[in-house]
Every structure is written in structure tokens, then in C-alpha cells.
């Protein structure tokens, strides 16, 4: 493993499988009466959020606390990006405080990379989402969810997603989740198809390790998992598509469309869902939809990542599995 987790593209297949396997162990902790490990006792982790995301912050915070780390939440909301010094100044303050890891969420693509590579700080850096660039722990939790559903929980240990067919639908252009997922799923051996109107696909996408389609209906029968991406309503004003209704008709997932998917196929969404436009309530509430599991799996994945970056070679779960019996 590298010292930082900035991009899903930085992970080798073995790195990624190790994280998924470690997350399986971490998931068992959640089933215990006391959901806590002493692993990161005495280590300080800062959640440095320049951009609002309660869901992601809480997920990291839960993971850190379950590993017994000391947690500092730093919400730099309102500190404007145009005031360039803020990231560097903040980094140096944290450095002076002897922080071991920084979990950073930033509206600007590349901010975590700069934080990790500019000599401003010595701590391990975990990217919790930067601009339209990457959100690697989201991709890992998605892959974890797919492995559990499509390969099987314990049967999945040591395995990747070889041959699984995954379809991502929606605003690829502005989606760090799409970028991270394409990189990671490809690394794990899956076949990825992106489906979107041409206006929501980036220039140069033909060089990405995936297929691209404008047509959702023909892709669905060949999908083991369909991940709906969030479409921000403000995109409509920028003429990325004509109307919400037309978008929904061409790229939304409803019951009829879900019926075209193979019986075992799952529906995923990084949340929060815009019900009605990108996904109907019928689909969102069906047992094929993994949104709630994704949230739970997010904590396990973040525990695994922080443990592997900070915990060194100690076994993550100190008490043997027999204890669970």
C-alpha cells in the first residue's frame, strides 16, 4: 500500500483486494456488542472538510472511532478557494499539531494530491472526494457491496470482480464517483459500461477502460449491477439536457426498466437519491437496491483503509474469529 489514498487509479489489484478483505473483517466488528477495536489508539486523525458532506464525514468519523483514534473535525465551510493560502495554512497548522492522518474533502480537483505532495504536511492523506476528480473510498465501498452481492461475503475473500458487468448511468462528466469506479472496477477485472447523453460524457472518454453507450435499454439485460449517478438539478440550466422529464424518460430507472435486468442484478446509488428523476421510488425501495448496505459498507471500507495506511503490520482484529461463536 502507498502512504496516501488519493485516487482509485493508484491501487493495484492486490491492494484493492486486500482492502476489501480487511473490510470484511472490519464488518464483523459491527456485529459485536462493543463495536470498537484498539487498533489506532493514540493516533490522531483530522477530518478536513472544505466542502459540505455530512454523510461522508459521519462515515469516516464512525470508522475512526471504531478504531479508537482521536478524531478532530475541521469544517472549513465558507473558507473560499479563491483565498489560496487556506489549504496550505491549514495543513501547516495540522502538521504543527502532530496529526497522523488527514481525511480531506475539497471542492477543487487535485487539492488532496497537492496536500500530499507539496511538502506542506507529513501525515497520511485520504481523499474523501475532490472536485470532479476522485472519491476512492466510495469506489471501494461500491466494489465491496458488489463483491458481497455478486460473489458472496466469505466466498468473496481474496477474489476480485472478474467478468462482472457493471453499468454506470447518468452524469459521468461531473462525477468523481464515476471516475473512481471506472478505474477501480477495471483494476478488479469487471467490464464497465457508461451510459449517458453525449453532453454528460467527458471529452477523451474513448481512452477510458470501459464501454460507452447512449442507450440504457439495450445495456440493462447485460448488466450484473446498475449504478445510478446523481444528476444535479442545476445542470439543466447549463443545457446538458432539455428537460427533467426527457432525462427521466431516457436515462431514469423505473420498474419497467428494472425488469429488463437479469434476476440477480442489483441497483446501486451513491446517494443521496433524487427520487422520480433518476430513480423511481419503486426501484429505490426494492430489495435489489443496495443503497442502505452501501452506507454500512462505507464504514467498514474506511476502517480498512485507515487501518492499512496507519496500522502497519499488526493484525487489524486482535481477537480471533472463534470469539464470535
Amino acid at each position, binding site marked *: 500500500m502507498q502512504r496516501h489514498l488519493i485516487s482509485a487509479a493508484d491501487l493495484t489489484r492486490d491492494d484493492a483486494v486486500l482492502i476489501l478483505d480487511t473490510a470484511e473483517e472490519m464488518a464483523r466488528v459491527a456485529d459485536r456488542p462493543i463495536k470498537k477495536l484498539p487498533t489506532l489508539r493514540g493516533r490522531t486523525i483530522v477530518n478536513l472538510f472544505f466542502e459540505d458532506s455530512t454523510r461522508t464525514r459521519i462515515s469516516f468519523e464512525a470508522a475512526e472511532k471504531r478504531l479508537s483514534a482521536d478524531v478532530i473535525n475541521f469544517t472549513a465551510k465558507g473558507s473560499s*478557494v*479563491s*483565498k*489560496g*493560502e*487556506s*489549504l*496550505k495554512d491549514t495543513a501547516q497548522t495540522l502538521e504543527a499539531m502532530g496529526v497522523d492522518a488527514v481525511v480531506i474533502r*475539497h*471542492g*477543487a*480537483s*487535485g*487539492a488532496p*494530491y*497537492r*496536500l500530499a*505532495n*507539496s511538502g506542506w504536511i507529513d501525515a497520511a492523506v485520504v481523499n474523501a472526494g*475532490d*472536485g*470532479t*476528480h*476522485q472519491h476512492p473510498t466510495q469506489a471501494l465501498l461500491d466494489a465491496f457491496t458488489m463483491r458481497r452481492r455478486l460473489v458472496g461475503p466469505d466466498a468473496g475473500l481474496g477474489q476480485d470482480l472478474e467478468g462482472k458487468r457493471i453499468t454506470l448511468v447518468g452524469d459521468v462528466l461531473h462525477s*468523481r464517483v464515476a*471516475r473512481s469506479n471506472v478505474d477501480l472496477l477495471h483494476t478488479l477485472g469487471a467490464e464497465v459500461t457508461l451510459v449517458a447523453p453525449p453532453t454528460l460524457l*467527458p*471529452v*477523451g*472518454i474513448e*481512452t*477510458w477502460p470501459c464501454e460507452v453507450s447512449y442507450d440504457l435499454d439495450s445495456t440493462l439485460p447485460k448488466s450484473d449491477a446498475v449504478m445510478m449517478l446523481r444528476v444535479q438539478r442545476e445542470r439543466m440550466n447549463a443545457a446538458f439536457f432539455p428537460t427533467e422529464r426527457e432525462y427521466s424518460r431516457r436515462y431514469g430507472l423505473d420498474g419497467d426498466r428494472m425488469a429488463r435486468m437479469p434476476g440477480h442484478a442489483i441497483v446501486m446509488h451513491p446517494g443521496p437519491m433524487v427520487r422520480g428523476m433518476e430513480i423511481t421510488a419503486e426501484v429505490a425501495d426494492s430489495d435489489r437496491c443496495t443503497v442502505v448496505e452501501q452506507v454500512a459498507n462505507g464504514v467498514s471500507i474506511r476502517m480498512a483503509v485507515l487501518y492499512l495506511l496507519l496500522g502497519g503490520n499488526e493484525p487489524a482484529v486482535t481477537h480471533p474469529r472463534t470469539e464470535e461463536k
Partner: protein
Amino acid sequence: MSKTLIRGAKVLGGEPQDVLIDGGTIAEVGGGLSAEGAEVVEADGKVLLPGLVDLHTHLREPGREDSETVLTGTRAAASGGFTTVFAMANTFPVADTAGVVEQVWRLGKEHGYCDVQPIGAVTVGLDGRKLAELGAMHESAAGVTVFSDDGKCVHDAVIMRRALEYVKAFGGVVAQHAQEPRLTEGAEMNEGIVSAELGLGGWPAVAEESIIARDVLLADHVGSRVHICHLSTAGSVEIVRWAKSRGIAVTAEVTPHHLLLTDELVRTYNPVYKVNPPLRTERDVMALREALADGTIDIVATDHAPHPHEDKDCEWAAAAMGMVGLETALSVVQETMVDTGLLDWAGVADRMSVKPAQIGQARGHGRPVSAGEPANLTLVDTAYRGLVEPAGFASRSRNTPYEGRELPGRVTHTWLRGKATLVDGKLT
């Protein structure tokens, strides 16, 4: 005034000759000239060029003296072999009146490191709506001949048409920063494979090309001449080539960094590579080099854009756009054009002195190196190779993309009207 004998210099890269400067003028050029009464500079086969002329410099004064001043900027210019710089109008206040352009011009005169020719804004406050007092700036002591809203594009077609027409009255030229504003909203780097991967807002080539296409057609329509700043794409080259083949009066410039660097470097997220227009692809770089060699692109201009350290030592999105260029321009041109065999030193003199002086009407500059001409000269040690060390820059700012990079060539001497401004690489 004293005499100087430059002994054994390859004038425009030709056979070694002696050049005798007497006062502000070149007195004689030939073999075995007498050194009597003259200070001797042993050129040892270095290349002698007419003093370089930069049609596109940001001196930042007035308003951003923390980045650069007329004094520090002209010292940087002399270090890079320049004897004239054209100072862009996007200062604070904007150089959109006779008062501001005269102030800049006077500061240049007082400091004496190189001539400063202020550029006047095309529109009031660079806001693209109302023509600035172009005539008054021309008639001022500064004698403005070049007008530009650089930093911004004159994007309103009617305003651009009127500006092109209006400056015909006194032979001025409009220099356009071609950037369609709607197509570049949120743009942070070249739109392409790299921007998609990095998640940085894409800056499409067509945003530049569509404005150039429009402006050459406007220039043709109104019978005026237009100058296009810092071409950065292969498509822009094609449009200018087409326009010239039709006899349209268009000239164009390219920066040294667009001749060398590509958007692959942005993968480091290091804001030293953040520049407007953005670094493009290898294919664009090759097209720009060819176009400069065949004359489709007329000149090299630095777009010297100094910024203080803190404006670059931050995340990409927050960083200012631009890089300094005066002190490395000739080295980059040697690396990309001369050492590649695309251009000889006579060609470099043409693209970096003769033509820019003509476009900007800088009298006394860009002249032949021959008897009777003003002694504006630059001596270059073309055999030199060394690492770029920004710590030694005369510019107040150090935002160079070449730190620690090896580049060929070094300007050792610069003379402005016979007076040395740079001797053995040191400013006088």
C-alpha cells in the same frame, strides 16, 4: 560617449566578425576592426542578434507591484536580451487612458533598462462594452500603437469590429486574446484526455479557434489588420494560415512555453503549469513549431506573467494563471526551434526582434546589425547549457515552469542604444 568593440561575434549566427559601437550607434561591422579607444568585449563565437522585442509583457505596475514593477520587469527583460517590451494594459487601474499609459512609459524611460511601449486597453476597464480613448492614448507621449484587452477577450463582435475600424485612423493594431468566454466558463486546463482524468474543467481548443476565425473575417471585412495573441492550438494555426493565404492582414504570436510544454505536465497539479491559454497537446506543440518556422506565426512573445509565490503555492483551482518568461524565452526558443533545426539564428532574429518591432512600430528596434543602425544588441552564448535557477531571476516573481530544468543558451550582454544593460550575465 564611449566606444565598444564586440570582437568575433557571429552576427545572426554567421561567420565571426567585429562590431564597433560608437555612442548609441553601430559604427562599423567587419573583420579585424581596430580596438583603439574602445572597450573590448570578446565574443568568442557567441551569436549577436538585434535586441529582442517582446510584444506581450505584463509589468504589473501600476497596481500589482508585489508581482512586478516597471523597474524589475525591465531588468528581467534586459537579462533576457530584450531592448523593448510592450506592457499589457491589464493593470490596476487599467491602462485605458492617456494618463496611465504615460505613467508606464515615463517609468520605463527613467529606469533605462529597456524601452517600454505601453499597450492601451481596447475597452474601458477591459469590460468589453465601451471603447477606451484609443486616439488619446495614441496621441499621448506614450504614442500607443497596440491595443489589447489581454487577459480578457474582446468577445462582442460589434465592439471588435469598431475597434478594428477605429484604429485604422492612426495605423494602430488590435491584439486579441482569443477566448470565447461561454465556452471557457469554469475552464482550468486544456480540454482533453488529461482534463477528463484529472477532473479539471476543460478549456476547449475551439474556444480559441472560433474567435480567431471570427476576427480574421472581421479584419477582412473592414480592411483592417489584427494581431492574435498567444496561439496555442493546431486549429488556430490552420485558421491563420488560411487567412494569410486569402491576403487578410493578420499577424500572430506564440509563447515559448507553448512551443515546449504540454498538458501532460498538469498531472502534477502543480500550478506552475497553470497558464492562459492552457498548455495543449504534443500535436499542438508540433504544429506551433512548424508554423513559427514557416512564418504562419510571425513572432514569439513571452506573455511574461509574474505572480507572487503565495499565488502559486496552493491548490490548482486557487492558483493564478501565468508564468514568467522574459529571462528564459531565448533559451526555450533555442531548444525548440534552433537545436531542432527548424529555425536558424537569422530566423530567431526575425521572429523575436524584426517582426515584433514592425507589428508594434517600435522605431529603432528590430533593425539590421549594420553600420548606422541604433546599437540595440544582444549577445548569446549558444553553447552554454545549464539548469534554470529562478533564485537568480531579476524579475520580482519566480513562477517559472523551468526550475531545475536544463536549457541551452544564455544571454551574456545586452546593449540599449550603445549602453550596456547586461554585462557577462550581470545587470549594470
